């Protein structure tokens, strides 16, 4: 058993942290998310060329840094601290995950493009009726000669406005909610029949409603085996959840530390409000939530390599902890900052917004509690 980071991982953390300190201050981020593009392609270019971090979780054989889930965790935690919006999650964690695990013929080429910053992915999985049931799909991919024709609508595809490619879940067989019949496709965003409606999200990201109307793709667009895509989706999704937990730890740390700092400087009744025990104990409870979240993120990240059942149970347990912590720490950070926290000019509220969205990302607390129960107690229970 070992909870230490390798020298490479510590260096990775320092590299990311120091770049973000110089280039990702609150005001710079605020200007970027309000700009028309909503992000800074030059930051992405720096991630690829200056920092080389887009290759963090890929093997050296593929041109990466030779890391894995722990390296994603390190990067995402730092991103959480700075509220980075650039699409590392969609591109490196999710896109990279699908490419690595599927053994797709074009994977080496595409991963090379990812590492160079030239390929950007967005994961189009959610549908209006499906909530958090990944296999609930109305989107269909119908066999057409050697290829497929895709039809359907995808909701809130994070990062889609910036993407070069979409990774799409679609049904090639079975009923709307069946586990069988799920397939995964890689679609060029400029393909004929793909239309997007782009918009900002409440936490400063960009997303799209994506419609597929008779989109023709070749057989090479299929990632993994036709009709048997669900286990692959669940695996990549679990990796994405672990990375989200890591991001949350960064966000929670800023909320907790920022609150401690603020209460030490804010004076009422002639004294810093940090001297009040009722506030001290609240901040201790926030700190405990943060510590428990870090523990669960380590646990979940390490267990990503286990069998599907153990992996899923660990991931859902972590997401439950993270979801509860995001709500408790976020709401109390605002409460202890007072009215200032709900102004747009103060950073704390922006961390609160991201924390709140993380509660629902890839499944709400209730969703993951139910998933955990099914895995821990068995279907009979």
């Amino acid at each position, binding site marked *: 058993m070992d909870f230490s980071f390798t020298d490479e991982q510590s260096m990775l953390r320092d590299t990311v942290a120091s770049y973000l300190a110089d280039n990702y201050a609150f005001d710079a981020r605020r200007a970027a998310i309000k700009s028309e593009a909503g992000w800074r392609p030059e930051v992405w270019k720096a991630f690829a060329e200056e920092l080389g971090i887009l290759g963090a979780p890929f093997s050296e054989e593929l041109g990466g840094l030779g890391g894995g889930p722990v390296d994603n965790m390190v990067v995402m935690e730092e991103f959480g601290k700075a509220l980075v919006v650039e699409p590392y999650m969609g591109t490196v964690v999710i896109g990279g995950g699908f490419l690595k695990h599927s053994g797709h013929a074009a994977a080496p080429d595409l991963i090379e493009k990812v590492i160079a910053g030239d390929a950007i992915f967005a994961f189009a999985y959610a549908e209006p009726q499906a909530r958090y049931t990944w296999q609930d799909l109305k989107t269909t991919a119908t066999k057409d000669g050697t290829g497929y024709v895709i039809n359907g609508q995808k909701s809130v595809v994070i990062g889609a406005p910036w993407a070069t490619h979409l990774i799409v879940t679609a049904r090639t067989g079975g009923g709307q909610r069946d586990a069988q019949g799920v397939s995964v496709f890689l679609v060029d965003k400029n393909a004929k029949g793909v239309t997007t409606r782009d918009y900002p999200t409440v936490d400063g990201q960009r997303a799209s409603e994506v419609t597929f109307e008779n989109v023709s793709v070749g057989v090479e667009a299929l990632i993994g085996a036709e009709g048997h895509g669900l286990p692959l989706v669940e695996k990549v999704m679990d990796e994405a959840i672990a990375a989200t937990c890591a991001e949350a730890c960064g966000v929670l740390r800023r909320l907790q530390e920022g609150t401690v700092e603020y209460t030490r400087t804010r004076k009422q009744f002639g004294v810093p409000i940090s001297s009040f025990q009722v506030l001290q104990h609240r901040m201790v409870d926030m700190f405990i939530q943060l510590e*428990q*979240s870090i523990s*669960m993120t380590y646990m979940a990240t*390490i267990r990503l390599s286990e069998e599907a059942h153990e992996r899923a149970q660990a991931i859902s347990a972590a997401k439950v902890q993270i979801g509860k912590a995001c709500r408790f720490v976020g709401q109390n950070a605002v409460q202890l900052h007072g009215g200032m926290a709900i102004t747009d000019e103060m950073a704390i509220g922006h961390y609160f917004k991201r924390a709140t969205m993380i509660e629902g990302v890839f499944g709400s607390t209730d969703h993951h509690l139910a998933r955990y*129960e099914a895995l821990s107690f068995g279907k009979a229970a």
Partner: protein
Amino acid sequence: MNLDFSPEDAAFREEVRTFIAENYPKDLRAKQDSGEQLSKDDYLAWHKVLAKKGWVAPSWPKEFGGTDWTPTQKYIWSEEQARADTIAVLPFGVSMLAPVIYTFGTEEQKKTFLPGIYNGEVWWCQGYSEPGAGSDLASLKTKAERVKEDDGKEYYIVNGQKTWTTLGQFADWGFFLVKTDPDVKPQAGISFLLIDMKSPGIEVRPIITLEGGHEVNDVFLDNVKVPVENRIFHENQGWTCAKALLAHERSGIAGVARSKRGLERLREMATTEMSDLGGPLLTDTFFKRKVAELEIDLTALEFTELRTLAGESSGKGPGPESSILKIKGTEIQQRLQELALEAAGHYGAPFLRDLGHNANIGPSYADGVAGDYFNGRKTSIYGGSNEIQRNIIAKMVLGL
């Protein structure tokens, strides 16, 4: 970063598992199974087996009898003990007093007291709390005045009252916090004394708790004569010892392995007990959710403890972070007791203690769950209440 157990760790697990299976005292097991009250010898039976094996105090420095186990081995050891449902080695000597002696004591004191603690020959009790000094421990009033007797030796004459002295009815010796200087700020006038419980002037009176048990006591000290050489560390610097002791007390308090075992038992109960809708209680939507949330919180605590242990292994002692383990550990123990009582339904009510250990009404798992619940309320109160732990984190960790 990994959770792998090395082949050496796996072999170690096998070794300790076999050792426990082959050496755990059979009549102690029988008494535990029947719920019979344990005697002084029962409490010490397992301790003595471990002492003989050399495993009674894994965390002590090697020179005094520690095992030099890695954090992983210590983790395995506590897991295997919980799995086999062994009784815990009493903490008073081994985990509370001994670290104070080997950290602050003289060579003479180490030689005199550590072997008795290790072998279980001397039963220690704790004289900290007083009727007027609970959370505000430093306000204690038990007074020790230094006098020179006719034999030419110096003594402390101790007067006062201590309370909540756990298993003090069996104790041979006690470690006491006493006031040696009433005129300075409270923390600066306290000394740490070791007192022979057979000394004239000591009276131990039982306190009976809600579940009918006699675990805790009042201890009265009336002109008790204590040789000056029984003081640990400098006069008026006992608070330093007291704080160090409390940090050690807190780190063991998480009780992760025992709670995991408790959770298994709860799940067994909830598989047998029926829900209102028929079918096992564990299929009840609301009960199931409470168990799931408890299980997840326990996992979080387990990994927080593992992170703390990993930090300790790189040279840091248990710090103020161990207050987190105390808070979360005791909350989880109490939630387990709460859910066990809920699960027992009607059969939480029968109170069988005075009917003798063969009494049996309702399912055997229901016997004692109410008592455990009532007795278990102590855990968030003792060892520095959970509110005091929050004060400690606020001050020492958050710098407030």
